[in-house]
């Protein structure tokens, strides 16, 4: 069922139950009718906009609505936990219960308290109960399988003791290892070892002083070529790349339009810059119809109002408008609607800052990120930022763009002046892995990894949807959030999966809205089909055990049902 290019307008078919699928497609890929029917029957939502064919491929993103009963029960659950929390705090205050956490020194008891009591209420009473699901120490390469050090707690997670056992061969669904470059053997590791021998581990100086090695220049040139931009600059930490460069680009009198789900580093960078920040909505509601317009409408409205009305009280025109978006949002698994954002940016003369932390290497036919995924021109994005941690198996971040931009950052970025440059073996790892992805090392390993990741993504997501879980996000995103909702299930899911030798990441408040806790799977090119099948089997079991199959839109397994009239009636919208 390959999509075939359609060169002319074509109408969508009217479904048997009378609903019309949205919009026309011009210049786009059109699925053959059988595939369309099966896909429509499968309850997938086609968000193809009518904005003159901006999208060259179908954009399938869905956020199913929280079932009402589940939402109510979740609130009830949190209510019960809060009550118990107050009870426990009361008991601890009156010394009826032993207080486990560290307290202030005797001599400093009458100082102004360092923490607000309420701030810690959530930590003490909710987070502590399920704390064993996070910060699990490992002692091997974070590849497809990982060794976890076993911990035990005899005082309900207040303190941990290491038993000395190591749980070997746990399937790793939590590390950001999209292209499988987290390895301790192979050409990347050998190259890094050689450079380590020659250069040492540290640098002991900043870029502008005497810490600019020839390796850094080589890296930056390579990154620029990889992205298809004029120049690039690399930094030692991905978080710091955002928090130190956004203030260098915008300042007072500028406007930042930031997506509501942006990462903490973007938020911090925006705050430190001193510019005015306005938030536009993300596509996160569970409604199926016309959702594709909402967040872009929100952005467009903000842009219009900003230009027409100017700065809040003085009415002076804004100096610059900067739109901050991410390629893949790691908590939602959604992909930014880049064609629309670029269209808006061009219309309103704003600047675009794209944070590709999770999407570089993971999207696009050759791994060049979200810009290639949508078939757009990298020159349209003013500032392309990304990190080397996820797909390249190293650490650090980069910014790419026009030469003037990079020259300016070389002279004015906080990191170039005050922070140590990248460590040489890390640089070598990035260089080798990037060359591998580009195919410049003479093998086709890079291309295979990118393809393997795309296949794994589609397979995994489809199977999970068939099982009946609520999965958020875009079909092509290797980040797969599986909704848990209830607080007790967060802990239960993490622990049950570890018992079955699978390591998953569970997230709750405050990283997500309070009732939308989830488990997040990060797929990797290193995962083989067997590993995925094992994982899926266990997830299925645990899903039945914990009653996690909330989805009301059952997918018809594509291979089992042949195309016939009844497939139209399968789903209820």
């Amino acid at each position: 069922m390959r999509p075939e290019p359609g060169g002319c307008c074509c109408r969508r078919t009217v479904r048997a139950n009378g609903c019309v699928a949205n919009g026309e497609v011009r210049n786009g890929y059109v699925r053959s009718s059988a595939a369309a029917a099966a896909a429509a029957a499968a309850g997938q939502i086609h968000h193809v906009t009518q904005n003159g064919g901006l999208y060259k491929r179908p954009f399938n993103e869905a956020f199913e609505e929280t079932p009402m009963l589940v939402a109510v029960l979740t609130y009830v659950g949190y209510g019960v936990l809060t009550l118990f929390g107050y009870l426990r705090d009361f008991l601890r205050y009156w010394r009826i219960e032993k207080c486990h956490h560290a307290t202030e020194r005797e001599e400093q008891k009458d100082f102004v308290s360092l923490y607000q009591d309420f701030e810690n209420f959530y930590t003490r009473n909710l987070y502590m109960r399920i704390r064993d699901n996070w910060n699990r120490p490992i002692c091997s390469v974070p590849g497809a399988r990982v060794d976890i050090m076993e911990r035990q707690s005899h005082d309900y997670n207040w303190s941990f003791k290491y038993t000395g056992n190591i749980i070997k061969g746990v399937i790793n669904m939590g590390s950001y290892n999209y292209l499988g470059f987290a390895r301790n053997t192979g050409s990347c590791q050998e190259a890094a070892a050689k450079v380590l021998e020659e250069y040492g581990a540290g640098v002991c100086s900043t870029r502008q002083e005497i810490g600019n090695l020839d390796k850094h220049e080589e890296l930056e040139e390579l990154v620029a070529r990889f992205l298809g931009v004029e120049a690039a600059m690399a930094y030692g930490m991905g978080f710091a790349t955002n928090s130190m460069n956004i203030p260098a680009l915008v300042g007072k009198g500028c406007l930042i339009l930031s997506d509501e789900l942006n990462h903490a580093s973007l938020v911090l960078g925006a705050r430190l810059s001193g510019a005015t920040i306005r938030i536009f909505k993300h596509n996160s509601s569970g409604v199926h119809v016309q959702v594709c317009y909402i967040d872009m409408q929100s952005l467009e409205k903000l842009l219009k109002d900003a230009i027409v009305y100017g700065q809040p009280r003085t009415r002076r025109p804004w100096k610059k408008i900067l739109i901050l978006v991410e390629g893949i949002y790691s908590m939602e698994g959604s992909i930014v609607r880049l064609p629309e954002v670029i269209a808006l940016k061009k219309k309103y003369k704003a600047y675009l800052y794209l944070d590709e932390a999770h999407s570089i290497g993971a999207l696009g036919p050759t791994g060049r990120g979200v810009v290639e995924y949508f078939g757009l021109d990298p020159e349209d994005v003013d500032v392309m930022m990304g990190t080397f941690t996820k797909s390249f198996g190293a650490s650090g971040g980069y910014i790419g763009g026009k030469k003037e931009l990079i020259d300016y950052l070389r002279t004015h970025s906080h990191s170039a002046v005050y922070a140590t440059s990248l460590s040489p073996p890390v640089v070598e790892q990035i260089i080798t892995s990037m060359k591998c992805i580009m195919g410049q090392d003479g093998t086709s390993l890079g291309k295979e990894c990118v393809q393997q990741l795309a296949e794994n993504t589609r397979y995994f997501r489809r199977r999970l949807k068939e099982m009946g879980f609520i999965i958020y996000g875009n079909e092509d995103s290797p980040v797969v959030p599986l909704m848990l909702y209830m607080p007790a299930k967060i802990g239960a899911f993490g622990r049950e999966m570890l018992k079955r030798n699978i390591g998953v990441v569970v997230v709750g408040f405050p990283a997500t809205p309070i009732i939308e806790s989830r488990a997040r799977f990060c797929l990797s090119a290193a995962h083989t089909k067997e590993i995925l099948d094992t994982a899926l089997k266990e997830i299925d079991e645990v899903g039945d055990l914990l009653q996690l199959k909330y989805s009301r839109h059952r997918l018809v397994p594509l291979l089992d049902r042949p195309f016939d009239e009844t497939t139209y009636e399968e789903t209820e919208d």
Partner: protein
Amino acid sequence: MATATEQWVLVEMVQALYEAPAYHLILEGILILWIIRLLFSKTYKLQERSDLTVKEKEELIEEWQPEPLVPPVPKDHPALNYNIVSGPPSHKTVVNGKECINFASFNFLGLLDNPRVKAAALASLKKYGVGTCGPRGFYGTFDVHLDLEDRLAKFMKTEEAIIYSYGFATIASAIPAYSKRGDIVFVDRAACFAIQKGLQASRSDIKLFKHNDMADLERLLKEQEIEDQKVKLKYKYKARIFLEESLSFGVLGEHGRGVTEHYGINIDDIDLISANMENALASIGGFCCGRSFVIDHQRLSGQGYCFSASLPPLLAAAAIEALNIMEENPGIFAVLKEKCGQIHKALQGISGLKVVGESLSPAFHLQLEESTGSREQDVRLLQEIVDQCMNRSIALTQARYLEKEEKCLPPPSIRVVVTVEQTEEELERAASTIKEVAQAVLL
């Protein structure tokens, strides 16, 4: 039955209408007409008067021109063209193609090309690969990290330590984790940029006191509550002390534990000590140490800790080995101190340049005795000196600042760094070279 009653009520109403006095009817009629008019008249919209028409809005949108994203950078900007170091930035380096002795990188204990450190890092690389592929909370915690935190806590004789993957982010994340809006922070004027950014992110009240001037600090604290000397100040005025020891860790004190050991202060009195591992330890990253009560909080609210990937294990292993070396030869600190003293003395009395900094400090500044009046001119003169020294195989660097962003911008200077690896004669040579060049350029 209901309809009958209704009808009956209706009849009553009509009768009442007939029997009502005329003025009553007229008044009610007017009221009804008024209501009808209000209902159908257009609602009074305040903004309609000042609202722009769609066409005007489009015109405004067309006309608006933003500034260019970045202003153009002049080609001769002093910081635009970096020095390129080929090969490792160790004791003898190749800078811009010239072989020099390194007096510019903060490699105080010479651990950058120590074979033991490299071997430990290599072993770790072979076991774990390079990256950690995740933040500490999500399978990014390696046993190496836990080891390093343990070792640092033991070395500094505190309860707990926490490591960050970037030196700058260490103090910049630690400060906003504790100090929020409504809190007050007393900061030395000469605090480094990372501290300034941390304070900016915290949104607290900042009070600056003059550099190293305890009287000024006291005056400020008195204005808040009241106080006295350093540590005693803390208890009298009930303030907490955060100490930033990036340059003094591994340098001061008998065993290299920093300023607290140097002055013989009980480490428990300091609430938080933050340092980066990029200077004396010749690795990458930073750490904070202190009592568990204080440090544990950062594990959930330190932004640079929770939302960022953890330190690559090979760098953590390098730091552990460096700590081992520091613990095994405590004699190097005395050697370093001596060398600092020596070059400090040797560089006194250069005409045109004055030495700024304590004789204990391995990194000190050479500033112009008399400024030419413009900062740019000063910077250019100093750069001339640096370039000529480089030609004579002494690698130096100017201290770089972001001129527009620093709160209290120090005057331009050349930074000279002393390391354990430099021999006495190299120090002598450096001193004499700087003297000659300074004389040539400044006169």
